[in-house]
């Protein structure tokens, strides 16, 4: 018979388990994107998902609150589920030339931290590195911070929010035709 856990140990083991669950979800989601399983990836999204990447700017410290554009202003991505479905149908179209021949992508997720738990929603911060190569020798390397909201459902987690804060100002890429 296992010895009784102290309160502290119990709290810690709950946190470790949740951390494990969250990370496994993020890794599985990343693997679907790398494997070009876009339909299955759509299955992991909540119906009210907000997928957003604001524009980042070089500003002085005095102006640092203007580093990123705000919600409702211009952005690289400001998508709801309908638009993400458009992106997936486009990727499958056979005529999305920027992804056909398909890119090779690798989604890395690290420094995963659970920021907040509110009811069935978990806010998770992570660092991302999306590495993409195309054609003979095109290389894109996108690094940044990401804030995701995972919602617990009977079928497992669903992604309800993905906000991406890219570490680039002039985007050093011909396009961003990949899903982050």
């Amino acid at each position, binding site marked *: 018979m296992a010895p009784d856990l102290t309160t502290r140990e119990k709290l810690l083991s709950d946190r470790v388990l949740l951390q494990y669950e969250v990370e496994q979800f993020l890794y599985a989601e990343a693997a679907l994107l790398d494997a070009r399983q876009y339909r299955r990836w759509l299955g992991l999204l909540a119906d009210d998902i907000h997928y957003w990447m604001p524009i980042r700017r070089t500003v*002085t410290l005095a102006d640092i609150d203007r580093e990123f554009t705000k919600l409702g202003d211009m952005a690289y991505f400001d998508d709801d589920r309908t638009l993400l479905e458009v992106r997936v149908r486009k990727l499958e179209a056979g005529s999305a030339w920027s992804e056909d021949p398909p890119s090779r992508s690798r989604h890395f997720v690290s420094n995963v931290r659970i920021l907040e738990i509110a009811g069935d929603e978990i806010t998770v911060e992570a660092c991302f590195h999306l590495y993409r190569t195309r054609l003979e020798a095109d290389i894109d390397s996108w690094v940044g911070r990401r804030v995701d909201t995972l919602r617990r459902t009977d079928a497992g987690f669903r992604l309800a929010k993905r906000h991406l804060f890219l570490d680039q100002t002039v985007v050093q890429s*011909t396009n961003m035709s990949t899903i982050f």
Partner: protein
Amino acid sequence: MADGGQDLRAWDRAQLLALFDPATGALDRRVLSDEALYQLELERIFARGWNFMCHDSQIPEPGDYFISYIGEDQVIVVRDEEGGVNVLLNTCRHRGNALCRAEQGRAKSFVCSYHGWNYALDGRLIGVPGLKTFYHNDIDRSRLGLARARAENYLGFWFATLATDAPALRDYLGDVGRTGLGMICANGEVEVVDGVQKNVISCNWKIAVDNLFDWYHVPYSHASANTAGFLDIAAIQHPQSQMVMLGEYGHAIGGPGIPRERQDQIDAMSDEERAAASRAAPPNSPRIRPRAARDLMGPVGVRSEGHPNIFPNLWITLGGLQMCLRLPRGPSKTELWWFTFVPKGAPPALRRAMIAQANHVFGPAGILEQDDGENWSQSTRSARGFSSRGLGQYIGMGLGHDQAVAGEDGEHYIESAVGEHGQRWLYRAWTEWMAARDWTELKANHTPPPTGPV
């Protein structure tokens, strides 16, 4: 180093003019790859022309600045205490350090981070550390202010040129450039939406400009946007109802045109009737412009639903919702900057819809724009191969099959099916700009917009 292994050599006037043959539509692909031509472009196209800087609403208060470019010359666009706008080369007169590192902000003056020289918002050198101790008061500060470009605005859009002999902005724009900027303001005064999308494409800047007149590529390049149900290409292309306007010095507008009979009906409608008809139209159809648009765009221009380009590199798109600046970064590299405008005080729902359209269509992640960049970079890349370069570009569509006519206000325009009149006008103007040593020569030796067979 020369791009594509070519020699850095001087081009003479006859050679420059021969790079494009308007009689056949043959373009020499070296215009996309040659390093010496590129350096000449910085001097004879960008430093000489009027370059778009930013909109009034981006720098509303004294001290507000925005960093922009004239070719590869970085400039500070700043509002001074008197409300005027100065365009200053962002290079300290001491050792050349950049005064501004941030891409936008507010400043009381510009203090150099290297040795502390201090410049007023109008560029005057007002402070030199050690003026007495180290310089012995023996320095002429009046000659060491920041270099200034000429700055003028039309409808609140600021432009700058480094040519002292350039015509006034209004004359430079001509009817076509004014129609283009008028298109943005056709529904009333506008303000910029915060955030300029910027990305870099491995293409020559002219390929990107050529493409904005190109309504031939839309069903092919953007087929996936159609398949994905994002938009109905047939409903926006209007391949049989195109109108190209040609302006002096290379400005042009190309794309769908409202047939004259339809415009006559619109002209008879009140603003209320136009608004009602716009609401009843299928989604994604262009809004019928209010009566005031005719004053801004002219009787011919108001019929354009196409793409203006203000020579050399300013594209106005989505019916005037956005501008895309194509900044040269070497023969095979271009930076794209997207500016977005909404009517001042637009109701929140309209503002949201307009911003969503801008975010979803263009920019590096735009459902349409995604697929353009790779075509442009591959087209540029082939100009580096010795034999591929020798083949030339074929820009002959519609050549000799259409008529240019003069409108009642002196506009020159062509109504036809999809063609390449805009592209030919672009490259023809480009050779004339490149061949002229100054504005006097360019004024004397450029082709006026045509009337008759084209």
